[in-house]
């Protein structure tokens, strides 16, 4: 996690995912304000539509990538013991992987 770990790539991923998330949150808020689903069933049916499902999937990926770069930055800034740093990074990665699995299960379960 030092010499050839990504610098530019992580930075670009952070910017791109932020852009997507900003757009996604804006559109989602607009949808919920202007044409809110009537009940849980309508909501499930809406999210089950392939385009919406894909958009949610992308948002999940963007959120996890964005969180990874951000938390990694905080750990690299403040944690100076290599062993502790590695342990924390592994822990974060594990948590994000669990979130990915959980989120994907929900999204796939709806289609």
């Amino acid at each position, binding site marked *: 996690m030092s010499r050839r770990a990504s610098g*530019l790539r992580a930075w670009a991923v952070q910017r791109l995912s932020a852009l997507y998330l900003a757009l996604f949150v804006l559109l989602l808020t607009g949808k919920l304000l202007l044409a809110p689903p009537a009940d849980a069933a309508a909501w499930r049916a809406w999210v089950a539509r392939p385009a919406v499902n894909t958009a949610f999937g992308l948002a999940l990926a963007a959120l996890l990538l964005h969180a990874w770069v951000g938390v990694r930055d905080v750990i690299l*800034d403040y944690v100076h013991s290599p062993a502790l740093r590695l342990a924390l990074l592994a822990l974060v990665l594990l948590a994000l992987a669990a979130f990915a699995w959980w989120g994907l299960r929900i999204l796939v379960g709806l289609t």
Partner: protein
Amino acid sequence: MRFRIYRYDPERDSAPRMQDYELDDALIEPGMMLLDALLLLKAQDDSLSFRRSCGEGVCGSDGMNINGRNGLACITPLAGLSEPVTVRPLPGLPVIRDLVVDMGPFYRQYRSIRPWLQNDEPVPEVERRQTPAERARLDGLYECILCACCSTACPSFWWNPERFLGPAALLAAARWIEDSRDRATEARLDDLDGPWRLFRCHTIMNCTEVCPKGLDPSGAIARIRRRMLREAL
């Protein structure tokens, strides 16, 4: 006029202390700079140590933390300072004595970016020429006097001074990356990739805020990032 100045002699003192000084208002002339006041205080107490040389903001020797903000004592007017004027050494560097810091870590980072022209092509009969436009790209980059006000105001440099280059060294790196005569651009960019050397910068912009020469290290770092992105795509 009242002053509070950081005093520390590692050979004698167990811990740093702040010492109060009083300067007779009769000695203060209009337009006087902080450095002039420090010299008058040194005449009162010759144990007070600080660096100075040109006295006009060109050499970069008297960088210090003045009322919480890094700057050059020689171009900081006394008139604008609230009392007591609190003077500390530049933060984040080891103190040698009083306001004198060890600039070693700062210079090491500067040296590591190879701050010289790299070009192995045969030396031409005349100078390696630039168009006015190519020369203009160096404006805002070459004027740095290496006073360390920016790097020692940067939290990222405080946390990782050995791995993060700091704004001054990155401004210098941008100066050579932008130079049309340099042939090591690719290697220079590669050297800055990775999470540490450049990408510990979180665009806090303290560097641009304090630069006594009015330069924009934060903007220079953004230029390097854009250049890297362009080369990568």
